[in-house]
């Protein structure tokens, strides 16, 4: 009986320990960043005949774009550190600036904070991903695989749908 009583005590202690551990795990999960990507889309790109040879970001002369919204459903702040895709040579983050009726673009820092419970939008006539040196044409209905790199969440894969608007 005594052995059984001791065993029950140990079992109880074990259960308590497990419960505490589970609780800590849940707290750790709650404190993490939780990145979700929505509404990713791109505009069509048609490479001219002959441009598919060996395009480079400087001379291919044909660019693409990706728009999307990043949500961070977690408590912890995260930050976007860059993006890449097999569809192009390089991805930079650019911002369209309209001043009166003059349109210009500027490159913005690739590292963009994504606060906990916050969102960051990449949309037309504003901040967007610029796909430099397209390796292939993007046809309406295609999906473009893009990898976004986050400081805490690591690589997040997204498929950007090609459409007119």
């Amino acid at each position, binding site marked *: 009986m005594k052995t059984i009583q001791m065993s029950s005590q140990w079992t109880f202690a074990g259960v308590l320990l497990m419960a505490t551990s589970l609780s800590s795990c849940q707290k750790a999960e709650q404190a993490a960043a939780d990145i979700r990507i929505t509404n990713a889309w791109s505009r069509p790109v048609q490479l001219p005949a002959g441009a598919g040879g060996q395009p480079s970001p400087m001379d291919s002369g044909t660019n693409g774009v990706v728009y999307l919204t990043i949500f961070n459903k977690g408590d912890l702040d995260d930050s976007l550190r860059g993006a890449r895709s097999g569809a192009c040579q390089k991805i930079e983050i650019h911002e369209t600036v309209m001043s009166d*009726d003059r349109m210009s673009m500027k490159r913005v820092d690739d590292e963009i904070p994504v606060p906990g419970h916050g969102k960051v939008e990449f949309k037309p006539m504003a901040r967007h991903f610029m796909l430099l040196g397209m390796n292939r044409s993007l046809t309406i209905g295609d999906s473009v695989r893009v990898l976004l790199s986050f400081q805490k969440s690591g690589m997040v894969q997204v498929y950007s749908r090609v459409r007119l608007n």
Partner: protein
Amino acid sequence: MNPKIFLSSFLVLLSAIAACQSDDAFKGTELEGIPATDFTLTDQNGQPFTLSDQVGKVVVMFFGYTYCPDVCPATLSKWKQVQDALGDQTNEVKFVYITVHPERDTVEKLKAHLAVYSQDFVGLTGSKEDLLKVYNGYGVYREIDKISDSATGYLVSHTSRIFVFDRKGEWRLGIANDASVQDIVHDLKVLL
């Protein structure tokens, strides 16, 4: 107040409101008395295109470049929606896209780029001298922005407004780039 004066004031007010809401009023900025600068440039098929040859049609014109990934394709995409919304009337409208970057925009690039949106859109390029006359004729701003920290090397800032010419070949409207498809369709229908 004298009832007659009150009634006439009321009627004047009503007329003013009706005038404001007139369906014939343009949504874009109406221009009067500004002659269109004629030009001949080369289209995406290597054929000459002359503005004055388009008399009888409404012409919608924009200055952009194929390397631009955001505003210029957004404009072409909007034009495509305008074209669809106009239905049969679209045959009476010519959509003309003039490059601000002839250094990169060859005839082949313009052809490939515009074909994504519509086979009916006209893409124009030409010599720097000929294009400069067109830019100056319409007060088009165009500047190369060197971006040292970007693989693009440089981008082109430019005027984003849409120019509209009526059937008589007169320069009638300036439409802001962020105008809605509905507003553009409305203005074109007034001219048609």
